[in-house]
């Protein structure tokens, strides 16, 4: 008992006797002030600005305050790194206490709150805030498992009586689907891209280090000059080579990993939630027109970006030094294998751009004009950009720099977009099946083109490091 009380006292001291200097001191005061303001302001806003939901202002205030707490504790932690180092176990305990308290409050309140007012999505906004806050502050997604259960339950309840299109257009269901997508995306990212790096290679490194530790330390050569290929070294090299094949992914940047797509989707979904929220809060006003226009514009810009930008190639061309260092390391995979990795990465990155564009376009259509027809048309237009993926697959041994030329891009633009425009004009009144046929044709064509150019790229002489800029 005495231990618990002394520990609580230490936690209290740890929380309030932190040594802050300079701007951090003011930042901390600002955060604490906000903590006092958040419950009242959230209550006031929900009560006065949205009169119709005044009755739920108190639970909403509780929710929002609970969501705020992890952000606050995260700031305390992040801005007092020295303190965290001095009393690490207490510091961690403090963060866990705050997070657990907030999670408990938000889970219970949001669950019951959704029964009282099912067509309103603030509880999900609070959950989102909490989860983002805890993820940002502590690198731990405390809320995901419980939130998953809550939301899945709500989705099932809401979706059962109606069909999917109704579920998609209902405000509550919209939020729930988005939130579910958000949660799933975050879970995937959790297992692919935790904060600070790629989980898969971290695990590999850990495994490798364990291998090295369990082996006879005396067998480890003390000096490079004593490098001999004794059995131990062979075994170690085999282990390392196996790992380095995966580690090669890292050379071309974290965006080569397929998980990067999910992280981008996460932002898209957050953006969609914010946009939808704004449209709900300000219905039938000039602002809603503005937000609607903003959504449409963003959608168009993203599609144009997908058509013209060559992010994948440009991105990889920036990793020339990294590729060089990797190539010179002892257990690097062969250049040929790395070339394959590069080709794979290029296709994946380009497809990522395509899916992102498609996702954004669909989100915008769901928010602005949630109809099946619109979604099909948008899907078709997006798939028309798919053949551009093959642009990235080139014989880089003949290129001075890793950049699919804009001239070629315009050629493809002409080849695919102009006939598409003609088809669009001719079939604008055609049934949706015509659109679907166009989309399917584009996908097939893309597959053929990608396969053809993939083979050419793999068969080409090894270009390494890729993206040489030899002016």
């Amino acid at each position, binding site marked *: 008992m005495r231990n618990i009380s002394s520990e609580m006292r230490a936690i209290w001291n740890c929380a309030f006797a932190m040594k802050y200097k300079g701007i951090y001191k003011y930042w901390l005061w600002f955060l604490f002030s906000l903590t006092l303001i958040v419950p009242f302001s959230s209550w006031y806003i929900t009560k006065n600005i949205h009169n119709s939901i005044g009755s739920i202002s108190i639970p909403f205030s509780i929710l929002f305050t609970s969501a705020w707490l992890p952000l606050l504790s995260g700031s305390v932690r992040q801005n007092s*790194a020295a303190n965290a*180092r001095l009393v690490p176990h207490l510091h961690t305990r403090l963060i866990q206490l705050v997070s657990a308290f907030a999670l408990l409050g938000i889970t219970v309140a949001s669950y019951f709150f959704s029964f009282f007012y099912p067509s309103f999505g603030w509880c999900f906004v609070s959950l989102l805030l909490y989860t983002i806050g805890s993820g940002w502050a502590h690198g731990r997604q405390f809320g995901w498992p419980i939130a998953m259960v809550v939301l899945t339950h709500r989705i099932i309840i809401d979706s059962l009586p109606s069909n999917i299109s109704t579920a998609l257009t209902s405000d509550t269901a919209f939020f729930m689907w988005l939130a579910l997508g958000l949660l799933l995306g975050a879970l995937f990212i959790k297992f692919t891209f935790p904060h*600070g*790096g790629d989980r898969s*290679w*971290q695990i*590999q*490194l850990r495994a*490798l*280090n364990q291998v090295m530790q369990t082996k006879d330390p005396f067998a*480890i*050569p*003390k*000096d*490079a*000059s004593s*490098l001999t*290929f004794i059995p131990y*070294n062979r075994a*170690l*090299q085999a282990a*390392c080579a196996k*790992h*380095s094949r995966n*580690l090669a992914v*890292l050379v071309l*940047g*974290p965006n080569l990993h397929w998980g990067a797509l999910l992280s981008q989707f996460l932002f898209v979904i957050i953006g969609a939630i914010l946009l939808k929220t704004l449209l709900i809060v300000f219905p039938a006003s000039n602002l809603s027109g503005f937000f609607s226009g903003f959504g449409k514009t963003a959608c168009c810009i993203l599609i144009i970006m997908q058509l013209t930008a060559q992010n994948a190639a440009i991105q990889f061309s920036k990793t020339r*030094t*990294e590729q*060089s*260092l*990797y*190539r*010179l*390391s*002892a*257990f*690097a995979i062969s250049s040929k294998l790395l070339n394959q990795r590069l080709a794979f990465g290029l296709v994946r990155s380009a497809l990522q751009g395509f899916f992102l564009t498609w996702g954004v376009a669909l989100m915008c259509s769901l928010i602005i004009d949630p109809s099946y027809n619109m979604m099909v048309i948008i899907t078709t237009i997006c798939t028309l950009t798919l053949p551009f993926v093959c642009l990235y697959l080139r014989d880089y041994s003949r290129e*001075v720099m890793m950049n699919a030329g804009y001239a070629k891009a315009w050629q493809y633009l002409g080849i695919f977009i102009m006939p598409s425009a003609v088809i669009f004009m001719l079939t604008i009144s055609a049934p949706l099946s015509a659109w679907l046929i166009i989309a399917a044709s584009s996908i097939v064509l893309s597959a053929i083109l990608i396969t053809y150019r993939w083979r050419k790229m793999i068969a080409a002489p090894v270009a390494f*490091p890729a993206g*040489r800029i*030899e*002016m």
Partner: protein
Amino acid sequence: MIAPIVQVASISKSFSAQPVLCSLTWDIHPGQVIGLLGRNGAGKSTLMECMLGLREIDSGSITIYGEDVADFSEATRARIGYVPQTAELFDWLTPNQLLDYFKALYPHWNTTKVENLLSRWGFDQLKREKRINKLSGGEKQRLSIIRALAHDPQLLILDEPVSSLDPIGRREFLRELIGDVIERDTTVIFSTHILSDLERIALDVAFLKDGQIALQANLDELMENARRIVGPSKILQHMPISGELRRTTSADGSTCVIARTNEEEIGALTKNLNGSNDIRIEGLSLEDLFVEVTQ
């Protein structure tokens, strides 16, 4: 005669129509510490990258430890350390992650040395967990050097390793290089424009000019024997001088000859000139020599 560990044989490299390396031949023997000098754009980085197989050469051949650069074995790669000119590397990782990553790629990793260098070169725990793109240029360069030294390479190729370091950082780096690396008979090739650093550590210097090694010599011997001989053109213009490196005649009627010549030869030259007061023979600093050779 010990076989060279790096053999560069008549390599040529050009970018578009511009030749950078022209039939360059260069041998580097074990234990040599060579400072590679040359003007901006002379091709120092290109030469180093070609030597490591990071750039394809147009013609010629390069071998390191008897292996072609295009096909290094794991053992050879484990013996090479390289610090690129660009310190912007693996920006998306933290220093700890970067070092862990490379640790997994080498059979031998001197953890103690890494830890010591990180501590001595100002990488506290906070900095080690900071993304590399948040580090300063000097910190990135230090990290790059630590990474290159961590596996105790036998051949170290440094492309302007101290260009972003402050004088203290440079001193620490040189101390490390002299105290640990060179003492272990590591072969070092490094390019720099900071000649005072080069004078501290280099045993040999090589000047790159017009795509070729214009001059390579032991630094002490070069500093001792390099002379600038200035006098009237009518006397010097047709006079053969042994070890001549460069001869220029200016509009005022004077001729300047840069030569590597020893005391005996200077004595003989003075005797030939019959004690003419118009002739001036003076020693050269490394900076003077750099200017004269690479101009």
